[in-house]
């Protein structure tokens, strides 16, 4: 039971607003020591797992290109481009991206989108410029919310699309865990039962994005009043 000590360390450290990497390292040591490992064994387990998990950080290798393109005017050009599409709103732009992201994830192309390669260079700046064009510059809080919505569209699309594709890690992990518990299933059946939730997630998030549009539009007079 003492191995559970890492969880209060984790939650407490985050609530106490210490640096997250320090909190996570402390939680790992507390858990390992609580579970009866000696300090060097914990350090080794941590090192091995960190090395095995390098694929998690692989997305950073696109940043030099993203940075170069940004400096050469990528965001200004995105702004011009979305300015020409008169019917575009923040919500419609993000619904379109959500649909593309979820469909491509559902056919196994999970690495087509992503926060580093699509949201930061293209989707977030486009969403911000649409906000500026349709609802006025707005305050920093509103721009932050629009950037956060761009990130959310990417994550929601990826999460609730990937489980519909048979050969991705998530479905195979589900099958493996069920198998380990003596339950025999086929990956295709698991993927099939992920589809209703995938559809529901798309509808729920798309409706929320349409409501965001309504809210951003309504907020215009107030924003003008704030700026007096």
């Amino acid at each position, binding site marked *: 039971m003492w191995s559970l000590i*890492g969880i209060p360390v984790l939650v407490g450290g*985050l609530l106490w607003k210490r640096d997250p990497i320090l909190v996570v390292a402390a939680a790992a040591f507390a858990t390992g020591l609580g579970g009866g490992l000696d300090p060097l064994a914990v350090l080794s387990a*941590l090192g091995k797992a960190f090395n095995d998990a390098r694929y998690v*950080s692989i997305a950073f290798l696109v*940043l030099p290109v993203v940075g170069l393109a940004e400096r050469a005017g990528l965001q200004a050009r995105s702004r011009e481009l979305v300015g020409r599409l008169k019917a575009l709103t923040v919500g419609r732009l993000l619904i379109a991206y959500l649909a593309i992201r979820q469909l491509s994830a559902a056919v196994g192309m999970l690495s087509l989108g992503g926060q580093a390669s699509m949201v930061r260079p293209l989707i977030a700046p486009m969403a911000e410029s649409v906000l500026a064009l349709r609802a006025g510059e707005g305050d920093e809080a509103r721009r932050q919310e629009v*950037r956060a919505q761009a*990130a959310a569209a990417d994550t929601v699309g990826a999460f609730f699309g990937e489980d519909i594709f048979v050969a991705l890690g998530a479905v195979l992990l589900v099958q493996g*865990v069920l198998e380990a518990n*003596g339950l025999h299933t086929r990956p295709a059946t698991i993927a099939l039962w992920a589809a209703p939730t995938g559809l*529901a997630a798309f509808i729920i998030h798309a409706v929320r994005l349409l409501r965001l549009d309504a809210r951003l539009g309504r907020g215009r007079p107030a924003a003008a009043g704030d700026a007096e």
Partner: protein
Amino acid sequence: MIRIEAAYEVAGVVFAAAAASAALSRQTPRRPAAVFFGLIAVSFLVGDRLGDLGNGVLVLALVLVGAFGGLRGAAAVFRTPAWAVGDQRLGNWIFLPILLIPAVTLAGTFAFGAIRVGGAPLVDPKQATVVALALGAVVALIAAMILIRPPLAAPATEGRRLLEGVGSAAILPQLLAALGAVFTVSGVGRAMQILIGAAIPLDNPFLVVAAFCAGMALFTTVLGNAFAAFPVLVAALGAPVIVHRLGGNPALMGAVGMLSGYCGTLVTPMASFNIIPAALLDLPIGAVIRVQIPTAALVLVFNIALMCAVGFAR
């Protein structure tokens, strides 16, 4: 055969270039950033040769430099570089490098499967996508250098600029994955299983389903990873109670259980899916989580309703 290590080498070079750029910068003292990025480069380039304890020491060093080196906030001193001032000649060609990344990733994922050298596939089929992504980044960088013609050091400078913006959060997702592994070897799953088994009335399908789905979301919120929570909840409730005791559909239980875990991922500050965008888009992590809470809550309710409605075929 080309394996994922090829992609690690590309990532190692990116971090090494950022470290060199930070070390040589004259604007402000950037030694902690140079050490931090340098250590990540070492991990990517020679991590397999360090041994478990060596990697552990590397993690410890990264955590200390990352937490106490004052890494974040340096990005603000950047000004628009001379080569980029008033650069309008590219027009829409500026999108080409960025769009090349997904295009090459996609083409590579399919093409690598067909290319065989001496009977063996050229690229490890399991890791074709990641290798294709690395190739896409390299092709895109070459295209950007030809189109934009910045100074040769510009990719290193720009990579460092964005990485400095991310700061010590750059290693957090990987560290959380490592924490999950420590949880496993320390027996956290079994301990949690005992606690849950003691807390839930097991004959009411609605309560059990609600506890299973909400438990997946809650455990994922705490652990930061649905893949870590899933085996615990299936062993504690999914297999013994939902399937064996109440006659539930195992494939539906597995699929919907995992997707309930994703609802937890959407709202946890412990997951890379929220940490990385917050860092890249210059947002507090709470801002990303806040806009995802309603979707997560509604999908979780849908999941519980779906499993109650069709999960127990009689």
